[in-house]
């Protein structure tokens, strides 16, 4: 290993903030990279998992794919997926984004499926009885009611992806991981500064999707929605 080990002093934490100020340019560019990698991964994951999950839920089929399959993907060790991807996609951002999509979409898929599949059949029957077409039922009844749960999945995935993108530092994916894995150049204060930035980004991602969730939740359902609480990590394995 090429690590140089810094010693820890009580004021290392203070130094971490000094590090951020002294290296504002570096922090800014790494944070931007981190956001781009995470943003790409979240977007692709949404594009794949939401339509698939909603559709499977709508036709009430494919629980094996949406639940069992997802659970298996979620159990995969992040670094191992990144390592395997590296062998096939080579060094750089593509591989990291690919791994993040593989690891992040299952939770979105499962939630979207469960949200739509679990809607009270009486409501669907009422909608059908009123003469709604299948597409109208999907857009006017199923989707609005499923949104809170769908967004809960998106929040979990977003926090996971932002935090996991740190591992990109190991395989040339860029982002804040570059600082965290380079103690030799940036010392322990740099590692701490990078970690604080990652934690702040995760929190920000959580907050953004929580706000979106609130904005799109139908009013009648919003009565149950509470104020912002950070995603509970115990709900899902999001340590990375």
């Amino acid at each position, binding site marked *: 290993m090429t690590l140089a080990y810094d010693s820890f002093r009580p004021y290392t934490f203070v130094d971490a903030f000094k590090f951020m100020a002294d290296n504002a340019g570096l922090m800014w560019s790494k944070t931007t990279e981190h956001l781009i990698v995470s943003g790409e991964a979240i977007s692709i994951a949404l594009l794949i998992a939401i339509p698939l999950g909603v559709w499977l839920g709508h036709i009430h089929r494919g629980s094996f794919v949406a639940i069992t399959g997802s659970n298996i993907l979620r159990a995969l060790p992040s670094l191992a997926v990144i390592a395997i991807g*590296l*062998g096939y996609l080579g060094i750089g951002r593509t591989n990291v984004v690919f791994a993040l999509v593989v690891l992040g979409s299952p939770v979105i898929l499962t939630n979207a499926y469960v949200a739509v599949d679990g809607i009270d059949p009486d409501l669907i029957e009422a909608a059908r009885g009123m003469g709604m077409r299948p597409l109208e039922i999907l857009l006017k009844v199923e989707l609005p009611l499923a949104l809170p749960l769908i967004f809960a999945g998106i929040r979990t995935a977003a926090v996971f992806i932002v935090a996991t993108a740190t*591992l990109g*530092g190991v395989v040339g994916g860029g982002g804040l991981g570059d600082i965290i894995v380079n103690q030799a150049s940036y010392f322990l204060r740099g590692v701490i500064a*990078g970690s604080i930035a990652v934690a702040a980004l995760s929190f920000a991602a959580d907050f953004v999707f929580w706000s979106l969730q609130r904005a799109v939740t139908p009013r009648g359902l919003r009565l149950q929605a509470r104020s912002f609480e950070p995603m509970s990590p115990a709900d899902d394995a999001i340590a990375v």
Partner: protein
Amino acid sequence: MTGPSLLATGPVIPNFGEPPGGKNGCIAQNGTFCWDWVSLHWSDILQPRLVEHIQLTAIAVGIGFVIAFAAALVAHRQRWFEPSFSVLAAFLYTIPSLALFQLLVPFTGLGVLTIEIGLIGYTLLILFRNTLEGLRGVPEDVLEAARGMGLTRCQTLTRIELPLALPAITAGLRIAVVTTISLATVGAYITPLGLGQPIFYGLQTNFTTEFVATGALAVLLAIAADLIIVLAQRLLTPWAHSRRLAT
């Protein structure tokens, strides 16, 4: 491990003659995945690292479970305890593991202790929350029936509350185990133990098969562990899966 310098940048080819498969074989060409290498190094690299990985995981989840379980029992009786423990455990979660292991080094050195402490820390929150939720999820009428039948507090805990909390506890164990398997690979960044070691080594030396094959092995281990726990869960909690019969 003996071998070339850690700083080597080219493909690492054992320097005792021609590699298996010859000069134009998979290993010599640094192919993406060479079976030759896997079979050659199963017994001296892959298998020992796999065993280490299982040990790291078992110790971390075992100790983490004991701590979290005790904490959950306390929190079940003393309400004030929950927020304090949760905040502590949740704080640990916000630190990226790659950084946490480094931050522990000044205190616990470059050994197995650093990895285990980090891994244990990450298991606490899940195991604590799930155990506590399981205990709290026991229906009020069941508890009243138990009290009315003259079960002591201790009997209620061991015969009623804990068995009923078992599905939640095993669900927590399942998440804790797969998370720990994942984080243990990252831990090899600090201390060359477990399946993360060949992955990092392969990355350093740019020998593709080593990190691809080890990554695949880690994936298989995670899936196997996940399936074993699901199976154990079904065996341990038959009542939770019994289907309603026609009446």
